[in-house]
């Protein structure tokens, strides 16, 4: 396994296979032929075609997009803070986005998907910048940033509870936004897919700057990098990706934390490879987690955020074993 391009291609093949498997398997199994038929000769009367085209495929598309975005935002945030514990979930960015989405829905009763996204971006930016400012104040000490993030998440969740109860809502609604889920989500159309792809390509062109961050602040500065500017630029990307995911699926944790670590294990430190790797692995991972959730706990729609917590907790214990981080 010397050739990284080969591994990337394999990831891509796995992604295609995983998507098909994810669409076909579930509470009810559909044959591959039915899937092809539902594209070539769609019959609205056929319940199998209907379910595939209107439930299974949109869900898989959301899983791919959200997984890719979260993997990417995790990679970027770990790069700019040089903190192996960084992720949009632990830093409270997801919670901030969720809070503003709830706020937006309370203010404007019928909020369109674009509206939800705008609020989500606002929330993600506010939480993200608070964390980054505080991170700067504690000199990017990994433990302290992680603690700030945990505490900020608790604070934002409390605020979300307060505004929901204040408007006569059921306090349990908070759970809908604090645990991400792929069930009953609005379908994502072509515009969003295209937008996200463009952003991915844009980031790929900046891989060199990310490589500089990995050299450490002093070296990067000596090589002429404007650290402050690039930190800002990449923070904007983190916020776009995280905000987009929360607007669609709620706050799904741990992908942003795990995927960058796995990518670095497979591809080393070269960000030209790490960027596509995080995208592909993130999408693969969420598709797999979604499939497992549906197969292990059938009939009920267990939120995928819970599966992620169960997968993510042992990963944290693994991180705790890596002494060198502290």
């Amino acid at each position: 396994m010397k050739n990284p391009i080969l591994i990337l291609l394999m990831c891509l093949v796995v992604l295609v296979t995983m998507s098909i498997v994810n669409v076909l398997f579930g509470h009810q199994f559909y044959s591959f032929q039915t899937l092809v038929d539902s594209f070539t000769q769609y019959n609205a009367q056929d319940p199998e075609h209907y379910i595939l085209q209107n439930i299974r495929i949109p869900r898989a598309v959301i899983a791919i997009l959200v997984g890719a975005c979260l993997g990417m935002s995790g990679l970027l945030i770990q790069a700019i803070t040089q903190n192996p514990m960084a992720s949009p979930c632990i830093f409270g960015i997801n919670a901030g986005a969720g809070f503003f989405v709830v706020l937006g829905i309370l203010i404007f009763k019928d909020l369109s998907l674009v509206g939800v996204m705008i609020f989500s971006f606002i929330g993600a930016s506010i939480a993200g910048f608070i964390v980054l400012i505080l991170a700067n104040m504690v000199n990017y000490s990994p433990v302290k940033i992680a603690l700030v993030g945990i505490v900020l998440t608790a604070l934002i969740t409390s605020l979300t509870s307060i505004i929901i109860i204040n408007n006569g809502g059921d306090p349990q609604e908070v759970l809908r936004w604090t645990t991400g889920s792929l069930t009953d989500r609005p379908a994502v159309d072509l515009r969003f897919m295209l937008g996200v792809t463009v952003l991915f390509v844009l980031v790929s062109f900046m891989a060199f700057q990310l490589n500089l961050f990995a050299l450490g602040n002093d070296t990067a500065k000596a090589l002429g990098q404007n650290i402050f500017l690039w930190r800002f630029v990449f923070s904007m990307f983190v916020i776009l990706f995280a905000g987009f995911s929360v607007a669609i699926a709620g706050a799904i944790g741990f992908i942003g934390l795990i995927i960058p670590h796995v990518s670095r294990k497979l591809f080393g430190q070269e960000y030209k490879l790490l960027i596509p790797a995080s995208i592909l692995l993130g999408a693969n991972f969420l598709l797999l987690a979604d499939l497992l959730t549906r197969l292990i706990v059938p009939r009920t729609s267990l939120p995928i955020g819970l599966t992620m917590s169960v997968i993510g907790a042992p990963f944290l214990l693994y991180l705790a074993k890596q002494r060198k981080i502290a």
Partner: protein
Amino acid sequence: MIVVQNKYISYIFERKPFFYLAIAGILCILLFFLAIALGSEVIPLSNVIQSLFGKGQGTSQFIIQELRLPRAITALLAGGSLAVAGAIVQVVIKNPLTSPDLLGINSGGTVGAMFYLFFFQSFVPFLFFPIFVFAGSAMAIAILLFFLKNKIETFRLILIGLALNSIFAAITTASLIYTNEKLGSILYVWTIGSTYGVSSQSAQIMLVISVILMFLILPLSRILNLHVYPDEIVVNAGEKLPEQRRALLLISVLFSTVAVAYVGPVGFVGLIAPHLAKKIIPRDYFFILPFTFLLGAILTLFADILGRTWNPPYEFPLGVFTTMIGAPYFIYILLKMEGRRI
């Protein structure tokens, strides 16, 4: 200085701790009366005092005895016990940034409670409910100690706590989703920490257990004073370090169980109350512990009053407000810790 000296004991007390304890005590009592007086219907303080001594009349007597008094008592005791639990954990783990909630001990207790509600409720009386909470909390701390392997480092401590919290929260959330909507809603409020619907029987049990626990821990304050120092010094002073550590953690878990079982895993009280107490009264845990208890009680009483009077008829779980107060204070502590070892 106050000197107590006779044939058996000889003690020198400073005056200041007594002064601070008195102030905190008065504040706590004041808030306690306010918690009874304020609510959807405001009862004059004179009536409150009358009915507390059994001379009240009519509806206000009923409201006080059956509704407000149990809530005020449980809020006070929950805050106090969580604060003491936090103070003990902070000494034993030797880290001012830990607390039963950050380490996952409280969320472990929550999982124990869910276990009771789903599998044992039908044939085990509610009286034994705290045992399940205790089992959950004890399990959490056992896992924590297993992964720490006696080498306590902040980074690993926080990661393991985070891991425990996330897995326990996932189990709790899944249980909440599978219950019917009404029960799920009540349970969810409890997982934030609320005095909603506590019975006077619960208040009595809490009172008895917390008093017993306080009498248990106060004589041990000498050991706590010693555990502040590095491990080698404790061992050199002739103390049995691992045994004492386990015993102290056990008492701490008992304290947090009292609170979690009846009011819920209230956030941040166990973190900031001990921190604040140690700032005001340094050194002697014989004073720090009761002072911490009072500070925690003040915090939860205040949060409870706020939750009931903020925007009636809606009621906010008190845990929401302790977090709103505690989280910023915690970030402030973190920022001020510049230059220390973490």
